[in-house]
């Protein structure tokens, strides 16, 4: 480890880092703007200047930009040098010449990096007394507000949007002291990662427009560590509340998962919490009742009836387990479509075997090759797509810098060397996707053919089977891909459930297994549909079909349906049949939907914001989200609390108290062995540091004594949180909390999201105390074949039948996030995709209305001709209005 001297004290630092990273890692406060740990250095802002000396005898030294200088053993530096300090102050003065002096009324104020850096450098006197330059702001869509006058031209926005995330509609224009950052004209930012601009921008040029609509200062938010609810990736977030409404979602750094970023669905999809459509009171037979009446009624329907429970892929582990605990293992069913459930079983089998490790997003970013089989991850797991992009770019950069060594952080130089060099990535999907443009190879095929290609690749890497009836072209492609993969050392294979095709999953496993056999270190990622699909699958509940058969067989069933709209995931005919046969239907959910309408007993459940829970992400990572605030509405509580109450009713032990979270989690660990270790995802409720809890409110939180004065002039006693070590107050431990329980990033002098520097072991590295979450798939059950080998037959078109497959959309396909107006506004109109040949055969054109007929349902959509689509497949927008309950993966008829 190189030893460097900073102001004459020696420090050991990590080789290969730049001086700025080294200084920040050591805990020094050194100001910066353009450098970003995920995006490297460009040396543009000149803010991070320090003095460097030739040796210990050199007293004059030279000012350098610390972000542009690698650490060298024996290096002598000074941060405190007078000239360096004066220069840093001068840079701020320059940047502030044109920056508005409206911090008190600026929405970035109090969480502004520029503000922090200004204070840090000591600049406090303005010598510039001219008019400031002004710009015209742009309308950038529902998510991001633009305030160009605040710009300090650090170029971070374009570097993130264009270079890091591949966006095409934000750029820098003009030159000299009039450079402009924005779109070519007003319009919605197209990238699904645009929200990160609000955090990447060191000041308030790009801000969260949804927050502006119900604005609250950062320091006035009650916030808690949370986990995104809108796909299976499990990005870590921080959710903030004031006056009983959820105000915003910001990134919560997790080096292994989402790093510094979030997708727009995750960031802006939170407004369902504040929705008018929330279920606010218990109902019995559509009549609002109070708690006593509810409990009384529950007693009658729960006892003397046979109980079954329908588990939910979007409810927490705690709630699903509480349901299982209530109804018994044998009466616990999964509320997912059968085909999907079988796939998820397959996935958990594979992962449980421990044969191939699951790839975290970080591992995907670091992979030197990626193969995607049959999953449009741009739409089903956007942050995973962003990680794949980084793999492609970073691998390309590494290749380019092999001959001309250049540190990874030297962004512009690496880019210059790299030019168009990209890492190897194969994107094999049903139709074209947004990741195609960075792929080395794009192949569009039917699911069975995707699987066949996968098996062929595996066989080329490690011959294990005899391939019969394979076209030469497929074998040639497979060979090309296999040869490339054999040049790599840590490739990642990504697949998922979107093809509704088991062979695709098996093929993905076989590729990974073959790579492993070839001495590589492969990892695999299976994308599943919902935020806790993986957790539900691991519970191994029975298929929904069995539940239908059960109610058909048994007359006296009370079904408890947990947090889901069955009509969304299952064909309406089947759900109707099921519900009509249940004697009693108890539904717990947070929002009204088609299923809640059928409820005999409807119970208001909390969302992630009003309750605690644990979700299991695609990688089997159990992650805890914490209650953000106590809702005024006392009926809103976690499903697991309601369900535990019901259990008490049945067992006759009702005492009017809710169970504690700790006890639910420990029962889960005891009852279901596959979840052993899940309690380590977060500290228990009894956890404290020096006897203090972790405050959800920063010490600057204002208005506490007055904000509830409309109800009571004396300040109410804060509600105690029995379920977590977090308190609903501003008092408590002010130091760094455990990494999984960080309610906000703040350190003295660091009020912006950049404060995360102070929570990391090294800059851009793991959080102090390790990254949040426990990965549950670590053990090997050994119950797996070496290879599956069983490749399917070549896809064949059928007479007058089409294979129905989903087309997912970042905005629109997710059930809850569409309650956010911005996301709803960006959802496309549902459509039906057909190949040009099929369209011609059916004699339909773009926009013609065509009807899909499956067993019991009919759906009608306008046609979209999709060039890349294979004949014999019909593609329908998933999750959009009118597309609920479709029989994905089945053959359907089409009619004009």
């Amino acid at each position, binding site marked *: 480890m190189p030893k460097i001297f900073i102001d004459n004290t020696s420090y050991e630092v990590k080789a290969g880092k730049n001086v700025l990273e080294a200084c920040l890692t050591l805990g020094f406060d050194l100001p910066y703007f353009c450098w970003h740990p995920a995006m490297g250095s*460009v*040396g*543009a*802002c*000149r*803010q991070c*200047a320090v003095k460097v000396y030739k040796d210990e005898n050199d007293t004059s030294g030279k*000012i350098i930009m610390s972000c*542009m200088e690698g650490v060298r053993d024996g290096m002598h530096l000074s941060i405190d040098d007078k000239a360096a300090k*004066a*220069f840093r102050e*001068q*840079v701020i003065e*320059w*940047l502030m*010449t*044109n920056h508005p002096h409206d911090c008190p009324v600026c929405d970035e104020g109090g969480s502004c990096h520029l503000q922090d850096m200004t204070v840090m450098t000591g600049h406090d006197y303005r*010598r*510039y007394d*001219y008019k400031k330059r002004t710009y015209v702001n742009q309308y950038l869509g529902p998510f991001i507000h633009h305030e160009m006058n605040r710009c*300090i*031209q650090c*170029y971070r926005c374009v570097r993130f949007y264009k270079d890091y995330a591949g966006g095409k509609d934000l750029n*820098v224009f*003009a*030159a*000299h*002291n*009039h*450079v402009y950052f924005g779109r070519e004209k007003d319009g919605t930012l197209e990238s699904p990662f645009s929200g990160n601009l609000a955090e990447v921008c060191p000041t308030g040029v790009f801000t969260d427009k949804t927050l502006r609509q119900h604005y609250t200062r950062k320091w006035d938010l009650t916030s808690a560590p949370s986990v995104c609810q809108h796909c299976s990736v499990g990005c870590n977030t921080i959710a903030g509340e004031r006056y009983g409404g959820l105000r915003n979602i910001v990134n919560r750094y997790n080096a292994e998962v989402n790093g510094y970023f979030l997708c727009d669905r995750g960031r802006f999809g939170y407004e369902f919490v504040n929705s008018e459509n929330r279920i606010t009171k218990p109902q019995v037979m559509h009549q609002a009742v109070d708690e006593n009446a509810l409990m009384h009624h529950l007693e009658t329907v729960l006892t003397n009836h046979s109980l079954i429970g329908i588990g939910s892929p979007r409810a927490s582990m705690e709630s699903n387990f509480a349901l299982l605990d209530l109804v018994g293992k044998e009466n616990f069913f999964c509320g997912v479509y059968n085909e999907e459930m079988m796939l998820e079983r397959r996935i958990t089998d594979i992962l449980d075997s421990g044969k191939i490790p699951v790839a975290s997003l970080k591992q995907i970013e670091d992979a030197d090759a990626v193969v995607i089989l049959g999953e449009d991850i741009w739409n089903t797991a956007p942050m995973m797509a962003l990680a794949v992009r980084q793999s492609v770019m970073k691998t390309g950069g590494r290749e*380019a810098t092999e*001959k*001309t060594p*250049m540190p990874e952080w*030297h962004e*512009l*130089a690496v880019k*210059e*060397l790299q*030019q168009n060099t990209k890492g190897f990535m194969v994107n094999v999907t049903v139709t074209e996707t947004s990741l195609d443009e960075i792929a080395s190879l794009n192949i569009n095929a039917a699911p069975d053919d995707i699987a066949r290609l996968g098996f062929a690749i595996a066989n080329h890497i490690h011959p294990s089977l005899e391939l019969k009836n394979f076209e030469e072209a497929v074998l040639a492609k497979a060979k090309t891909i296999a040869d490339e993969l054999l040049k790599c050392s840590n490739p990642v294979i990504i697949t998922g459930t979107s093809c509704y095709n088991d062979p695709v999953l098996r093929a993905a496993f076989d590729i990974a297994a073959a790579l492993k056999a070839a001495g590589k270190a492969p990892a695999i990622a299976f994308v599943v549909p919902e935020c806790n699909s993986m957790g539900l699958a691991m519970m191994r509940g029975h298929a929904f079909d069995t539940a239908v058969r059960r109610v058909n067989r048994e007359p006296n069933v009370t079904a408890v349906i947990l947090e889901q709209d069955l009509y969304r995931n299952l064909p309406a005919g089947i759900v109707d049949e099921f519900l009509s046969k249940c004697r009693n239907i108890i539904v717990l959910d947070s929002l009204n939907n088609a299923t809640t309408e059928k409820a005999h007993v409807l119970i208001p459940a909390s969302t992630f914001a009003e309750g605690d829970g644990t979700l299991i992400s695609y990688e089997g990572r159990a992650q805890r989200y914490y209650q953000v605030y106590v809702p005024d509405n006392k009926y809103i509580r976690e499903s697991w609390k309601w369900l535990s109450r019901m259990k008490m009713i049945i067992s006759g032990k009702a005492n009017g108290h809710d169970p504690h979270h700790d006890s639910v989690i420990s029962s889960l660990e005891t009852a279901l062995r596959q979840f052993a270790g899940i309690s380590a995802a977060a500290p228990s409720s009894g956890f404290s540091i020096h006897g203090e809890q972790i405050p959800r409110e920063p010490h600057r939180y204002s208005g506490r004594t007055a904000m509830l004065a409309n109800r009571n002039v004396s300040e109410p006693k804060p509600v105690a949180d029995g379920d977590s070590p977090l308190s609903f107050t501003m008092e408590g431990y002010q130091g760094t909390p455990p990494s999984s329980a960080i309610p906000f990033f703040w350190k003295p002098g660091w009020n912006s999201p950049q404060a995360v520097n102070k929570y990391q072991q090294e800059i851009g590295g793991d959080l102090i105390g390790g990254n949040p979450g426990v990965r549950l798939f670590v053990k090997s059950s050994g119950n797996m074949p070496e290879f599956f080998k069983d490749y399917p037959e070549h896809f064949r078109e059928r007479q007058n039948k089409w294979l129905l497959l989903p087309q997912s959309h970042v905005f629109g396909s997710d059930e809850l996030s569409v309650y956010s107006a911005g996301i709803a506004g960006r959802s496309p109109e549902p459509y039906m995709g057909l190949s040009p040949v099929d369209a011609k055969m059916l004699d339909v054109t773009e926009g013609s209305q065509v009807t899909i007929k499956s067993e019991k349902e009919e759906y009608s959509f306008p046609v979209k001709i999709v060039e890349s689509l294979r004949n014999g497949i019909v593609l329908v927008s998933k999750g959009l209005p009118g597309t609920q309950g479709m029989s994905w993966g089945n053959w359907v008829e089409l009619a004009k």
Partner: protein
Amino acid sequence: MGKKLLIDRVGIEGIRYFDTYRKHGGYASVEKAFKMAPADIVEEIKKSGLRGRGGAGFPTGMKWSFLAKPEGVPRYLVCNADESEPGTFKDRYLMEFIPHLLIEGLVVSSFALGSNRTFIYIRGEYAWIVDILEQAIEEARQNGFLGNNILNSGFDCEIYVQRGAGAYICGEETALLESLEGKRGNPRIKPPFPAVKGLWDSPTVVNNVETLAAVVPIINMGGDAYSQIGIGKSTGTKLISACGNINRPGVYEIDMTISVEEFVYSDEYCGGIPNGKKLKACIPGGSSVPILPANLLFKTAKGEKRMMTYESLADGGFQTGSMMGSGGFIVLDEDQCVVRHTLTLARFYRHESCGQCSPCREGTGWMEKILNNIEYGRGKMNDIDLLWDIQRRIEGNTICPLGDAAAWPVAAAIRHFRDEFEWHVLNPEESQKRNYGLANYAEPREVVAS
């Protein structure tokens, strides 16, 4: 009369065309060079002591020897014809009147460096010169000096002319390469240097027009003979573009053995100051180099005669000296206002800043505003110190040398003409009506920064 190697033939009728040029010894250096090994040509250039004529004065032979030569990777020679430094118009003269000299130099240099695709990046405003150059290129090709297998040497070379579009910054070599690649002219951070990774990620040499033209006489006469011309490390001849308040503005070739005084007053060169006015100050090497008051122009602070050489012009450092720079020689007579002149330069540099790094982007605009106030009678006394402070912090702290180029003229103006600035502040009304005129600049003064 000094030796002329570059523009001696400009007076010949029809020299712009191949036949005449060839008749007068043109392309002889190509014939000679193609019999040499490329490495030997580089050696000759090294021996000649030729220094880059674009402004920085870096030894050309050394620059060439840095060029990386990885297997299977093309190398490029790029001619920097983005002449934009105020006061400089020598390359234009050379290209306009004797274009074949540049083409000849480019063929030899391309051969020496192994560049099969050579570009002339010319400032966009020199639109008609593009036609002249393209015609010369076509003629050279017709006559076998360009194209495939030149003079049966097996060496192929094409020269392309690319127009810029109005950005001074593209004269900086890495910005030029960015612009040539079809991007904004933002300078790159070095390393990597163009000699290793330049145009399209390939090893690249970027040389000024005059530098490449000078390759022709060097090859013709030999590096040793060339190095004998001039004084010390200022070898060979240099084009000086003289402008401002002189009788004979224009482009002159000097052999770096004459004094500054001779250059200003000799009828062979500037021909003195018009209307019998006195000389007030001079910027001897393009707008970015320090302005010198008359008393420091002809004699160094040590009292020695100041010569038109790299070393002598720089004698005394920035305290009492200046630089040869690009050879843009700007003369101010006694009626000129240094504040106003400095203001136009500050405006120029603000306008030409690429906007990438903070000191230059924000500092240049601020300096322009302050100078504007001082010039128009709205200045305050501490504005002068502020101006000094800003330029001092810009200098040396930017990605590319544009920051320095913007800071130096301001620094030198304050250093040598502070009383003129003060007079503007103290006499706002009067400064609008008349100029300060000549001041007593007998002793160079130290300026202590606030």
